């Protein structure tokens, strides 16, 4: 980094005024008997954005801190951060190479969509059952394993779509059985300490599934072939300057490249997401699920069986994790332990987005995907950039929890 001091001072500015805004603003609003639920978060981002130039008017005028105001402030903070980085390290690829930046953004969005899909399952389970499933990573692993074995071992040549559907069926069925046998007693009051019970029983399921899979398939990594290889195409035909496709990659404008397995995995995830949204918002059962997540007792009064919704939510959550795994088994080498980091990332995402919030989970996935891509691409030290991947999401999570403990879309307590 050529001018590290510029970046350091900018960071210091953001942190100092952000911290001051976060601490003082709620007190100012409280003294004036105003709504303070957004004061800490809003004060922090508004302070980080323009320092005293925004904080003093805020403290004197005390306007209502709206989501729009917060959004504008966040955009300014991100702008300051990017500008300082560009000034500090003008030769960095993230500054000097537009194609590289867009490729990284595309990679971040693509992987973020898949993270989001997986986290959706976890947050769906939490919103209905109030249970954090520690076996979520194992459903992800099983989804990938079923797809691999279907396409490569059991029925070679079978359509990947059928294999993915089979993964969905298997993970849905395991989730269904598990909920009926182990989680249903929680709802009927048979369990004295249901919260602890849920943690332990899902942990138990995680270990059981992981080691059962290892016993059945061995711990040697496997990987499915590309589901839908691109046809070899060049536009224009002689140079491929506009579009160049090989079976494993698509390159647009000779600069932006997206590997085929990621592209198809993200498309599958988007299609599944659309189907899920349609189900939740357009069908009676989906509306019933949402009703139970909002008010269990009121939903029961209207004739919805909360126990059935519990079973459905857990099974669907498991299926969404399985679907994420099924779409990614063509991207990563697959092991019985492959779900551990994926589950850890999902926990980060749902806390970041707000526990139980479906839009929050999806947005959280996108944010984590983008931050990971930006961190990996832009950290100047090549020997550190990728080594910090697990830390990027944690940094964002820590910041959000400091400023907004309920997460981005979490319900206020």
């Amino acid at each position, binding site marked *: 980094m050529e001018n590290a001091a510029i970046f350091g001072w900018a960071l210091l500015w953001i942190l100092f005024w952000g911290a001051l805004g976060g601490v003082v603003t709620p007190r100012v609003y409280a003294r004036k008997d105003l709504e303070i639920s957004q004061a800490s978060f809003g004060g922090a981002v508004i302070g980080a954005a323009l320092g005293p130039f925004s904080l003093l008017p805020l403290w004197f005028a005390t306007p209502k801190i709206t989501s729009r105001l917060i959004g504008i402030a966040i955009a300014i903070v991100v702008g300051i951060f990017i500008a300082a980085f560009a000034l500090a390290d003008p030769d960095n690829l993230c500054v000097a190479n537009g194609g590289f930046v867009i490729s990284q953004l595309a990679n971040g969005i693509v992987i973020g969509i898949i993270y989001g899909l997986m986290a959706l399952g976890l947050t769906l389970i939490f919103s209905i059952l109030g249970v954090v499933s520690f076996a979520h990573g194992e459903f992800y692993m099983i989804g990938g394993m079923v797809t691999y074995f279907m396409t490569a071992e059991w029925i070679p040549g079978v359509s990947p779509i059928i294999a993915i559907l089979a993964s969905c069926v298997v993970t849905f069925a395991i989730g269904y059985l598990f909920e009926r046998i182990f989680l249903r007693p929680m709802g009927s009051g048979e369990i004295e300490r249901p919260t602890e019970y849920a943690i332990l029983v899902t942990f138990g399921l995680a270990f059981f599934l992981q080691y059962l899979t290892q016993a059945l398939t061995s711990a040697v990594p496997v990987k499915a072939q590309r589901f839908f290889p691109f046809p070899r195409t060049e536009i224009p035909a002689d140079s491929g300057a506009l579009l160049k496709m090989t079976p494993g990659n698509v390159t647009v404008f000779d600069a932006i490249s997206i590997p085929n397995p990621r592209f198809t995995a993200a498309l599958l995830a988007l299609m599944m997401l659309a189907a899920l949204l349609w189900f939740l918002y357009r069908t009676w059962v989906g509306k019933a699920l949402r009703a139970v997540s909002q008010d269990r007792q009121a939903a029961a009064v209207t004739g919805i069986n909360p126990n059935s919704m519990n079973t459905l939510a857990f099974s669907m959550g498991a299926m969404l994790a399985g679907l994420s795994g099924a779409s990614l088994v063509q991207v990563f080498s697959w092991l019985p332990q*492959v779900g551990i980091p994926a589950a850890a990332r999902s926990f980060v995402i749902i806390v970041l987005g707000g526990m139980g919030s479906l839009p929050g989970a999806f947005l959280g996935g996108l944010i984590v995907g983008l931050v990971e891509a930006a961190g990996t691409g832009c950290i100047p030290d090549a020997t550190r950039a990728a080594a910090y991947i697990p830390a990027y999401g944690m940094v964002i999570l820590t910041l959000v929890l400091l400023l907004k403990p309920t997460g981005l879309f979490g319900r206020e307590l």
Partner: protein
Amino acid sequence: MNLRRNLFWSLIALTLLALLLAACGGQTETVGEPEPAAEEEAAPAATEAPAAEESDDMDMEPIKIGALAPLSAPGAVVGGEAMRDAMLIAADVLNARGGIMGRPVEVIIVDTEGLPERGTAVVERLINQDGVVGIGGGYHSSVGVAAKEVARDNGVPIVFAETWNDTITSVQYDEIFRIAPLSSEVSAVDVNFIQWLRDENGMKLDKVVILTENTDYGIPAAENTTALLDGAGIASVTFSVDIGTQDFAGIIERVKAESPDMIVTLATGEASYNFTQQAADAGIGPQDVPFMCNQVSLVSDAFWTNVPDGNNCFVRRIGLPQKLYNDVAQELVAEYSARTGKDDIESYAMASYDSIMLIAQAIEDSGSTDPADIIDALENINHMGALGPITFPINRSNTPDQAGVDPKWWHQFPDPAITIVQYQEAGQDAVDTAVVYPNVYQTDPPVIVGQE
């Protein structure tokens, strides 16, 4: 009522599980997997005719030898399973010969998971709970670096089979022996090969990208390689990742932006598979740029499953080409092939076999199971192993100072052969790969891709 209902569902689940197990059991046999080693401890095998005379002795308390292998992630499981199979063969061979000093041999294999803290714990357990008199195997350097301290504290010898970090021997502990090559020597071979590609094959080689792992193997190996490349006038950029990294998309974009003339992978296990295939998807794989894959790529079934676009990979191979195998190696390969269905044995599996056999011979030579006596015997050993004649010429009676060599040669097998092979056909078996370097072993010229 609820209890009865739960019992009903539990029975259904157990029935489904039993059906699943039965279905998958049949599948395992058809894919030619090794016999599942349900027991990690190799029980003393039935002895053959000459040993039958000693059946009374064979009922005695077994001599226990420990064995280290990564058998679950994030360790290099492919390597660990190969090592486990070879060390189980060693146990069976020893017992078939009548054991050691007439006593049966028990090889206790433990899973290090490729993690130093786990390695420390299992070595502690092997020594103080299981009562082993020596330990063989070992794959990950970070495990070796940590485990050597436990061996030192307890005075029990370890013969490391596949841990390359120089400091494992350069600390000059009496208890630590190694038949794997030194990391710095391997780096020298890599760079000599790269120079050879440039100087004798006319390849353009101005910049090399190194992908390494943040471990006691990867970091020094990358530093050594960088220094040697620098000395050869070749620029290099190193990218480091955690051992279990899956997603390399961001790093691969950066590698592309460097426009490297060659890529060298120093990451092990499935991380190396993930990197190589994701690089291939992005258009900078082995078919696009000269690419050195990690040696775990020599497990060809797993390699082609995980890296279908890995053709033209250069792979560093420790040990001689198969045509130069001695009798011990040929017998080992025959047995290993029969058990695993593979055509050849991986170098680290061969070294693991030798590490157990070395300890066994040291016990025989010393006539004692006292670890101190075994260490004395190892220092003076002359063992004809699958890797060739194995000795440790730099030892307490011929220290590095006296011999005028670097301390890294302490208790170090000096002659592990290193060749560079290349997959030149998609789906090729490792045994059929072309030996491209050095010239003395060359079977085919290298296929060099991406040169305009």
